[in-house]
């Protein structure tokens, strides 16, 4: 029941976003960015809905949504953890940081989002904060000179703030 209600609301919100951009196909990327900000990903139904509402083909919408790395067709976690793997971070051991986070979040090979939809772990090419390498960004907060230990602590704090993980195994 709750999910159904969510969907009703979502189309309404999508409509508002499309209207705010004057149904202009040129604004498609901005529209998708705002929709994703709202839902943390781009559900297929919504992509179809956008195409119909804006009178452009679904393949065009899908084409744009899959071209850009920032768009996700899979649900993302509430906290998107981005580890920078740009040149400067790479030479300052960002790989070790990434591995530590993978272990901490119990992510399997190829898995990006935790089961409870709390965290998504990604790499990005550069935040341009190279003076602070290695850099990690959680949602919009930038963390500099992050060691694996520091990263684990930050994750622990978020988990604590969220009142523990859904399936708390540590008790």
């Amino acid at each position: 029941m709750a999910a159904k209600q969510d969907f009703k609301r979502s189309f309404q919100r999508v409509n508002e976003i499309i209207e705010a951009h004057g149904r202009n196909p040129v604004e498609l990327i901005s529209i998708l960015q705002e929709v994703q900000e709202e839902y943390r990903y781009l559900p297929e139904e919504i992509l179809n809905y956008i195409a119909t509402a804006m009178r452009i083909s679904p393949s065009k919408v899908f084409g744009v949504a899959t071209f850009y790395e920032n768009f996700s067709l899979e649900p993302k976690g509430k906290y998107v953890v981005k580890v920078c793997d740009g040149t400067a971070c790479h030479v300052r051991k960002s790989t070790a940081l990434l591995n530590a986070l993978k272990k901490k979040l119990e992510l399997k090979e190829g898995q990006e989002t935790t089961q409870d939809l709390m965290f998504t772990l990604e790499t990005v090419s550069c935040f341009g904060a190279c003076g602070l390498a290695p850099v990690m960004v959680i949602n919009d907060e930038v963390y500099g000179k992050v060691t694996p230990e520091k990263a684990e602590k930050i994750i622990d704090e978020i988990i604590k703030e969220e009142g523990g993980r859904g399936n708390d195994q540590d008790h």
Partner: protein
Amino acid sequence: MIRTIEDLYNLHEDYKEAMNREKMKILVCAGTGCVSSGSLEVYEALKEIVQEKELFVDIDLMEGGREGVNVSPSGCHGFCEMGPIVRIEPQGYFYVRVSEIDAPEIVEKTVENNEVVERLLYRNPETGEIYRTEESMPFYGKQKRLVLEHCGKINPENIKEYIALGGYQALAEAFEMTPEEVCQVVLKAKLRGRGGGGFPAGIKWDSVRKEHAGQKYVVCNGDEGDPGAFMDRSIMEGDPHRVIEGMIIAGYASGATKGYIYVRAEYPLAVKRLQKAIQQAREFGLLGENILDSGFDFDIKISKGAGAFVCGEGSALTASIEGNRGMPRTRPPRTVQKGLFQKPTVLNNVETFANVPLIILYGADNYLKIGTKDSPGTKAFALTGNIVNTGLIEVPMGTTLREVIYEIGGGIPQGKKLKAVQIGGPSGGCLTSEHLDLPMDFDSLDSAGAMIGSGGLVVMDEDTCMVEVARFFMDFTQKESCGKCVPCREGTKKILEILEKIIAGDATMEDIKLLEELAETVKDGSLCGLGKTASNPVLTTLRYFRDEYIAHVKDKKCPAGVCQAFKTYYIDPEVCKGCSKCVRVCPNNAISGEIKKPFSIDAEKCIKCGACVSVCPFNAVKEG
């Protein structure tokens, strides 16, 4: 509201006078780097104390003509590693790693008693020398900050400070000329595109000016995608009005009335600052209709990227602004004829536009005195990697690599040797110690097989494996290939596979031959800059470090000791005390022995994970 040029000069005088009443100015860096190190808390703490003591003034508090102390956020100083940075004017004291608990001491000593807080000054980690002011530090002393002159010195969120320092006067001067004359000045100043190509901006502007079209556009490329480059971010965050002013001048010169700034999504603070700056410029009448009563209309919109490196390429960028997949197209027609929305478009990058006000105010003749004959002006570089002073720098074109690395950058940490410098990001190439005295300008770098690119300089020391570096860049370009041209899409993938094979120790000399052939094919068979330059890291490393490739293939060795596959671990029997800690962590049961006697590693079973190295309390496990 500024309606006329006279209004602008009058306001400039008023604001200048207001700023002169700031007997002291505490500038707290609010660039991305320092914010993440906690600079906003430092700013709040300092401001609160100064306000409590009823000393606070700023440009918005004009009435009464009271003198006092201003505490203001500023743009990036470029010395991000040492953040949060606080600069005190007029003394020029430069405090590093400041935290909010230092605020009372700064106010008490520096503000009230004009003393310096010694412990917050920068100390050279190699020599221990302490520097009191920004200007006395070798990092800054050797630089020539013209484009970055305001970064770190003004509040980027207040247009009044920009106007107080002469902002928008270049625009006023441009309006006194005809559009053709403005193009001629830029042409004469030989301003070359700072995004990497080095194409003369004046030619672009003049070409667009000559086109007959109802609508023309000015596009600013702020899609600084090269990993390890952050010059444009710092300018957009630290002095956004300068970019806007440059764009309006370009619009006037070329007859374009609409501007777009394309900023990558990874730069949220730059977007925010630009938005605010555009808003303020509109309120002041510097964007909109009939700017400064010139009869010229211009407005700017921000377009946010969505994470595609290829969008830094001109035609891909315009496709992205139009709401399409950002894929490059064949040229001609060129952007100046059919660019954004098929209309004539001036497309330059952030730093290029930021140079424009300088050229108009200084005049082309004076601008030509800076830099080299064919590459006048300065260039901003982002200095990163294995270097003592990581940061953003600006030097005259033609400065040598040696000056940049050893004088400004402070050399390589721990006295290590320089191996290579990757210049221009993944599309660039690498330079070696033999290039240390090469002047860095467009043409000299080109002849060395590298390019200035956007200006990222990644310094690598002797412990870097160049094959691994090539693999790293190829991994990047391979992921970022848009997929349009087969040689780029498939070729980069195959190149990456071969590089991985070399690193894993499975390659033959045939593979190196194939690698070279592929690299040439990708270069020749791709449409856009990304594909054409994708193999540069491979080609330049093969050119300068061929012996390293051969060592990996023939001798099965990684000379830098980086590549995991070639590592072997052994236990030094002299050092081992037989505690068995290593046995317990070994995931593959490769270690055996008797307690209190030296243990040994079975090389056949060892998977080279290195777990035993970190756990041994006696450092008995050695890499060989």
